[in-house]
């Protein structure tokens, strides 16, 4: 994607602490429309906390978040979701008691509006709405090639498939900004390649902006347009993969001093 498109999300001077522990200290960065943005850093650098701030699960003590031109001191989960920020999780956070289909259907919650009355009758508008959304969900199921596990409870699926269902659930929200927290953790090479393909396809054909956290440097360098590097809650580098790769501070953070 072009580097010159408009900014979708900007995080400005965000600090977050739990009690006395500082998780994030004065971090600023932006995500441009249509790009794939990677957030990397050693364990405990505050990457996941950063995503949690962006979609409103954690509330930072300082700083501002500007999303789609609107500046707020903090997001709320519902706001974030209804404004088109979707998310997958580091440790798969699927609804374990439900089937793949139902999990992805939950992603359509915000697109469905019929109230209790019609839901109770399961007829007329409610049923039409149900079927329209089922159609969308089926498209996602096709895209992710998980047709065969449509009616399987997700608790029984292997890890790689669970990650895929989780991506599907996020896609069902038709997000403008998709946050992926270690989408490839614990996968084998083939599963990783599949996942990379989905991410690239999403970005290319649907124009979804993607922010991802990933430890596999090969994946990060290949996929992302720009990379931000965190360490101990501070931002230590920001730029294209080539720039970041050559940054001495980044090398130090990953390989230790005395390099």
């Amino acid at each position: 994607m072009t580097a010159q498109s408009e900014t979708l999300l900007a995080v400005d001077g965000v600090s977050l602490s739990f009690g006395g522990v500082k998780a994030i200290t004065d971090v600023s960065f932006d995500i441009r429309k249509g790009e794939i943005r990677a957030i990397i850093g050693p364990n405990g650098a505050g990457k996941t906390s950063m995503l949690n701030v962006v979609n409103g699960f954690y509330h930072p003590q300082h700083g501002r978040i500007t999303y789609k031109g609107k500046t707020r001191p903090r997001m709320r989960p519902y706001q974030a979701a209804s404004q088109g920020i979707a998310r997958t999780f580091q440790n798969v956070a699927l609804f374990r008691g439900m089937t793949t289909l139902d999990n992805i259907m939950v992603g359509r919650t915000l697109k469905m509006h019929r109230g209790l009355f019609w839901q109770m009758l399961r007829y007329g508008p409610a049923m039409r709405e149900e079927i329209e959304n089922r159609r969308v969900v089926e498209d996602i199921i096709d895209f992710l090639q998980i047709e065969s596990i449509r009616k399987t409870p997700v608790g029984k699926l292997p890890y790689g498939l669970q990650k895929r269902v989780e991506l599907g659930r996020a896609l069902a929200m038709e997000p403008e900004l998709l946050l992926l927290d270690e989408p490839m953790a614990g996968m084998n090479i083939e599963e990783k390649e599949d996942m990379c393909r989905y991410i690239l396809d999403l970005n290319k054909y649907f124009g979804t902006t993607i922010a991802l956290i990933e430890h596999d440097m090969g994946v990060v360098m290949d996929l992302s347009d720009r990379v931000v590097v965190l360490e101990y809650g501070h931002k230590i580098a920001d730029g294209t993969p080539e720039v970041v790769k050559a940054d001495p501070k980044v090398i130090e953070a990953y390989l230790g001093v005395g390099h």
Partner: protein
Amino acid sequence: MLYNIFIDPFVQMAQMPDLLVQTLWEGLVSGVLYALIALGFVLIFKASGVFNFAQGIMVVFSALTLVGFYEKFSAAGFSGHTAAFVALVLTAGVMFVLAMLVERVVLRPLVNQPDIILFMATFGITYVLIGFGEMVFGGDPKQMIASELFLPSGSVDVEMLGGMVSFQKIDIAAAVIASVMIAGLALFFQKTRIGRALRAVADSHKAALSVGISLNQIWVVVWFAAGLVALVTGIMWGARSDVSFALEIVALKALPVLVLGGLTSVPGAIVGGLIIGIGEKLGEFYWGPLLGGGIESWFAYAIALLFLLYRPQGLFGDKIIERI
């Protein structure tokens, strides 16, 4: 109306301090007993994550067993202190067998099941114990063998604050015994090998298993410990009133104590017990008449509910940090 709620009770308290002291003391004593029951809950919850609904019935059951043994002995011609203490030891033995049975029949097959299933299973234990207990001992209230166990009776009347305040000796004994037992349990947990294993199990079952701690053994130990706590509680309650299945309702009173203190905290159970005991008696005595009386049945829950709204994990419970 507002005057009646917010000012008048305090005026009464100030005008008759002797009554206030009496009420506080009664609250303190029932608080100690609530704390004892809650302690039994906490022991089991910490070590096995089981919310043991049967704790209340274990109190009744142990007290009934004790009295039942003693009655058998006196029917056979033995009575007095020795027989009472033999009965006590035998009852402890019964509680041990019960702990073994619970572990073998209920806990072991249900290991790794969700909390709510285990919770339900303790309901099952409650029903079995009620059915069994009533079949063996009958449904009639019984007299606790207090004097045979060297428990004092009568009261100490102290003149203070312009009135007479009366302290039941048995209540004083209850408070002392409860303190000793709590101290003993604390020592046991801190200083012995089993105590250490128990704390490890409380933190993580899997990790404890991986270093070679036998979960089954630990469970028997905690259920037995909870059984002993139940026995002591049963004796104390029984000495203040009769021993009957009506005591079961007292176990429900321990629940607000438990959540107030935090499900996993021994000090929480004690402090929570005292707060609930005193709060309940004060509420009933000074505010109860305004509402038509009988508020003791729900007042403790209201206290616990309001408190939980402020601090959802209870007084001493572990702080909940949600992470994803």
